[in-house]
């Protein structure tokens, strides 16, 4: 079990009526890695994630998560995963803390209050914890959303476009969170349409295009698909993002931005 596979997909197909969304997807995600599923809008990323998280049934092929088949053992799969969907799955009328307590109770964990407090602390939401989520910013919602997904320490985490619609600072906050998770041994499958996000976060990247995986490997492996780099001298101009982060003075953000 040294090279354990967290997610194994073979020949997965799914159509909506005449429209084939997945046309035979094969994918293998090693445990403890961050895996990015890269693709443009409508490539089938969300459909794949919904099948893996037992929300949709595939038409053909098999998918297993943490060793359990999604079609025949959905309960075991659900116990092993957490899904952070495209739209923040938080309860707006409850407070941040109540949202966390709710999920802890539904996962039947002991001491839901203590679990909630420690997550609020870890995600910098302690002060906002007593306020209704309706008053939260987009970034705060996303952080709460991810915090809710971590309750019960599921070994596999699905993040469907976790930074879509976020401002640059919130985006970097989410990136930091995801990197921390991988450090703890959680397998993360994230979908994104942002190339830099995949490049920045992922150990392995698969490109989903028109219902098929057309490339799959580490960033270094994918780079070899192109002809060898030609050396050119280009004056380094700061990107607008670098400038934005520098002038709004977000230390972490500027640091991360500079690293890239």
């Amino acid at each position, binding site marked *: 079990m040294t090279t354990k596979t967290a997610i194994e997909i073979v020949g997965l197909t799914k159509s909506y009526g005449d429209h084939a969304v997945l046309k035979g997807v094969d994918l293998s995600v090693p445990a403890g890695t961050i895996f990015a599923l890269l693709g443009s809008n409508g490539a089938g990323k969300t459909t794949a994630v*919904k099948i893996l*998280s*037992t*929300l*949709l*049934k595939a038409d053909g092929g098999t998918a297993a998560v943490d060793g359990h088949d999604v079609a025949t053992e*959905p*309960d075991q799969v*659900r*116990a092993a*995963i*957490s*899904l952070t*969907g*495209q*739209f*923040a*799955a*938080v*309860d*707006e*009328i*409850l407070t941040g803390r*109540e949202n966390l307590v*709710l*999920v802890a*109770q*539904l*996962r*039947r964990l002991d001491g839901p209050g203590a679990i909630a407090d420690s997550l609020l602390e870890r995600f910098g939401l302690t002060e906002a914890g007593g306020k*209704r989520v309706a008053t939260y910013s987009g970034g705060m919602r996303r952080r709460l*959303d991810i915090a*809710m997904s971590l309750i019960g320490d599921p070994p596999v985490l699905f993040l469907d476009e976790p930074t879509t619609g976020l401002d640059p600072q919130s985006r970097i906050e989410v990136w930091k969170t995801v990197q921390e998770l991988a450090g703890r041994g959680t397998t993360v499958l994230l979908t994104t349409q942002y190339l830099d996000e995949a490049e920045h976060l992922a150990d392995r990247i698969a490109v989903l295009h028109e219902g098929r995986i057309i490339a799959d490997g580490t960033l270094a492996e994918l780079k070899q698909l192109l002809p060898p780099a030609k050396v050119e001298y280009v004056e380094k101009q700061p990107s607008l993002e670098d400038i934005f982060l520098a002038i709004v003075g977000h230390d972490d953000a500027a640091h991360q931005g500079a690293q890239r």
Partner: protein
Amino acid sequence: MTTYVFHDTDVLLKRSLRHILRSPDTIITTAITPIAMLLLFVYVFGGAIDVGGASYVNYLLPGILLITVASGIAYTAFRLFTDVSGGIFERFQSMPITRSAFLWGHVLTSVVANLTSLVLVVLVALAMGFRTGAGVLAWLAVLGIMLLFTLALTWLAVIPGLTAKTVDGVSGFSYPLIFLPFVSSAFVPTESMPGPVQWFAEHQPVTSIVNTIRSLFEQQPVGSDGWIALAWCVGLLLVAYALAMRTYRSKLA
């Protein structure tokens, strides 16, 4: 898994009850329409309606109670729609919780919310001069019928709550239910209606339910109306439950 059904339902019930406590306006709006009708019919139209010597508020209350539930379940559908159209439904469905707990949480919340509205309406009716000599058993029978009626309409409301595409579509379904009591014995005796309308009024569920509750309040024998009302409520409940569960299952993987 069966022991978890109650635990999960309990957690989700408390969640939606908290929603209601934080927006008590939903209960007040639910009660306002029937209370307005009560005022309008008792103090404006009531004087011109001949119900055979009985006090009109006594005559009217049973029908108003049904209208209260019919307008209350619009919020049941709305709360369900909000969960389904936001991301939280998918979060719950991807978690290891009992499949039916999500629906039962909403259904029981609907029962609690509607009973609260009903109590409000009865209190207003009492202030307007509604009187009954009904004993504990008769009150329990009224409660039982209203509970069955609320459950039946709630399961009916689950269907648009799960399938509606827009907020308007969610609440639209309850309008016909609110107006059904107008073509029944709820406001005027059915004998005053022209032939075909009278036939419809006497054979639709509202009339038998209204007559049953009225007889219970007036300490009169319920007669066959009681069985017909019970049959309508239970029948409607079973059909609505089956359809709602089918809709729910088709929505799940």
